[in-house]
């Protein structure tokens, strides 16, 4: 009511239109263009479902999707298992005044460039890298291990990133937990293990699910880590997409593969959203 005046109708639209127009023009429209492109055999060709049927019939394409899902599942599980106890130690055992610093240190490498972070793991895992060198020097192994250009390397690079991310989310979750729940359980005679399993863990589960979903989405859509650390021995979906653009300039097929990848993420989101809702109820 205080904003009454001649411009009261024009002004709000003038404020929101630029952002909406930007989103429509550079997000929605490209998406439509990609959808249309995916339905052609080559740029400007007739409509066809060939790109999609190629994905479903060619076993090597299937393999990339299976690899993506496997790597993502392993990364999500390992990251949560490593991050949860770590976040717990930071939240429960580190004195209050040092917690902020401890947390900041725990996520410091988060701020290295993404490309550089994967490259750094290559330095660690290479044939003549730090780990192989250390292991041969103490005489644990005679020949250097093949660590780089493997799924193990991809998973390690990913886990490194997501342990930091999940430590943040789980730490925040643990801190929000009121200590009275635990006191109540202790008063009723529960030991520390039972308190954890029956009180703390269930209460932090929604937060874990949010973190797990975030891990899933970021991991399955990432090109850099598998390309640098995994190499070309075993392709994941984003590598397959980039390959179509790079080597063959096949935009329609790349578009179709991107849309399939996005569909998988959407399904995961819907599954997760339902689960989370049940959890909160």
């Amino acid at each position, binding site marked *: 009511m205080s904003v009454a005046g001649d411009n009261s109708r024009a002004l709000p639209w003038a404020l929101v239109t630029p952002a909406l127009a930007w989103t429509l023009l550079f997000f929605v429209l490209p998406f439509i263009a990609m959808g249309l492109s995916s339905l052609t055999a080559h740029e400007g060709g007739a409509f066809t479902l060939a790109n999609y049927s190629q994905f479903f019939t060619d076993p090597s394409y299937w393999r990339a999707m299976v690899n993506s899902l496997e790597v993502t599942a392993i990364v999500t599980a390992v990251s949560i298992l*490593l991050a949860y106890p770590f976040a717990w130690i930071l939240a429960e055992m580190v004195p209050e005044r040092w917690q902020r610093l401890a947390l900041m240190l725990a996520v410091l490498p988060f701020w290295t*460039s*993404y490309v550089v972070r994967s490259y750094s793991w290559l330095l660690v895992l290479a044939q003549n890298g730090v780990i192989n060198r250390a292991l041969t020097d103490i005489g644990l192994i005679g020949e250097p291990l093949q660590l780089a250009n493997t799924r193990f390397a991809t998973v390690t690079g990913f886990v490194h990133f997501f342990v930091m991310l999940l430590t943040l989310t789980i730490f925040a979750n643990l801190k929000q937990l009121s200590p009275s729940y635990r006191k109540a359980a202790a008063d009723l005679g529960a030991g520390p293990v039972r308190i954890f399993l029956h009180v703390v863990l269930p209460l932090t589960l929604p937060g874990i699910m949010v973190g797990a979903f975030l891990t899933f989405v970021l991991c399955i859509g990432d090109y850099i880590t598998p390309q640098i650390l995994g190499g070309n021995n075993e392709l994941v979906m984003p590598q397959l997409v980039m390959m179509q653009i790079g080597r063959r300039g096949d935009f329609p097929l790349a578009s179709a593969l991107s849309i399939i990848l996005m569909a998988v993420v959407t399904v995961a989101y819907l599954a997760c959203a339902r689960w989370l809702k049940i959890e909160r109820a």
Partner: protein
Amino acid sequence: MRAIVRFAAWIYAIAIYGFIFLPVVVLVLFSLQATSFPIPPFTGPSLRWYQAVLSDARLTSALVNSLLVAVLSSLASVTLGFLSAWGFARFVLPGSALLRGLITLPLTVSYLIIGMGLLVLFNWAGVPKSLLAAGIGHVVINLPLCFAIIYSQMGDHQINIERAARDLGAAEWKVLMMITVPVMAPAIFAGFFLSMTFSWDEFVISFLLTRFETTLPVEIWNLLRSGLNPKTNAVGSLVFAVSIVLVVFFELTLLRRKPA
């Protein structure tokens, strides 16, 4: 028993810290390598690879490009995000929830797919690959972020200050510039700095949408073709240093004000 558990917990925490810091320490340490391979044994310290980076015109121009794209795309993101947040927070608009959903939608889509979409569209429209194209992509990913941050911070007490200003006869643009922007400054800065760090580090959109003139992450990617190289370590350490400065600055200037 308790002591053993405590001890095990500390060992575990140290092990995780070790895991988290291992690649960064290796990166920075071997950036100081005196010989040509960033692998043990360590032969430094030497600054020759930092010199090599700073005298490499491709890398330094990529660094300038990256800063340019980051600053300009973040300015655009924060401006569009702020204006739309203000519009949605202060006025009742038909279909508001839906439209706000539309603006934040890009947050749920991976960068690869946003980049692919723009590549296909620009290819059709005949827009050449350029830094501008990459900058447009960066606004697409950062605008929703700025919008969400600023929108979430627009509370009722700020409305009252704006009302007071209007009642005292301030024109709408004056309210905006002299009341809303200063009051919202922390959220605006937060949006700007987050956008800066994301744009600064963004790879795949820049990779798809630029060709000759490119950003630093893409140029670093090109360096990787030559395998393990202390020069890559040096440039990576420099990028890390810049990010840390940004983060510390962010931490000191913004997060400290929060309790007020």
